[in-house]
């Protein structure tokens, strides 16, 4: 999971491998808050798969690539 200067740089780095998914860094910032925001809470409890999937869905990450196991 990397940051690239642009899509052109990511494509060159892939060097023919199948691409994964790309997000703007703005969307990544939103995802980070939703995913990691409670990690240091003294009341932290484990997230269920369904809770994690809901975080992704709420940010519009709904296709097969983002389906957790």
């Amino acid at each position, binding site marked *: 999971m990397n940051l690239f*200067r642009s899509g052109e740089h990511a494509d060159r780095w892939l060097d023919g491998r199948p691409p994964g998914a790309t997000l703007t860094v703005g969307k990544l910032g939103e*995802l980070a808050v939703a995913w990691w925001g409670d990690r240091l809470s003294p009341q932290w409890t484990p997230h269920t798969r369904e809770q994690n999937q809901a975080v992704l869905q709420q940010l519009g990450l709904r296709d097969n690539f983002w389906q957790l*196991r």
Partner: protein
Amino acid sequence: MTPEDIGLRNQTYRLFVELGRAPSAEEVAAARGTTEPEVLDGWRRLHDEHALVLAADGSQLRMANPFSAVPTNYRVHADGRWWYANCAWDAFGICAALHCDGRIETSCPDCGEALSVEVRDHVPDDPSLLFHCLLPAAQWWDDIVFT
């Protein structure tokens, strides 16, 4: 995950932030008034539950996501300290977990050019950068270090 293991996990994370680095099993045991073998047993259960990640030998932390216990290409300055993140997502995650602004320093994996991103209120100052996730979500935990 038992309440005891959740408590161990939360204390491990608290110590990570207090120390600015991964705590040892001995340090966590001292903080919890227990023994190092009991901490290691608990860490193994938490590793199996994906609540943290142990190094290959099982004796120390590799990740307390989003924090990395080892140096990586993602450095984050936040809350007055430098941290290592496991990946780009985790770099933003450190600011999110600490609830503070920060600066992420890394380099483009393609060209090697240094990248520096200021994060203010969880918004990056350079919207031109692109996040790429190679593996689909169902495969992330097959090899979390590679992911």
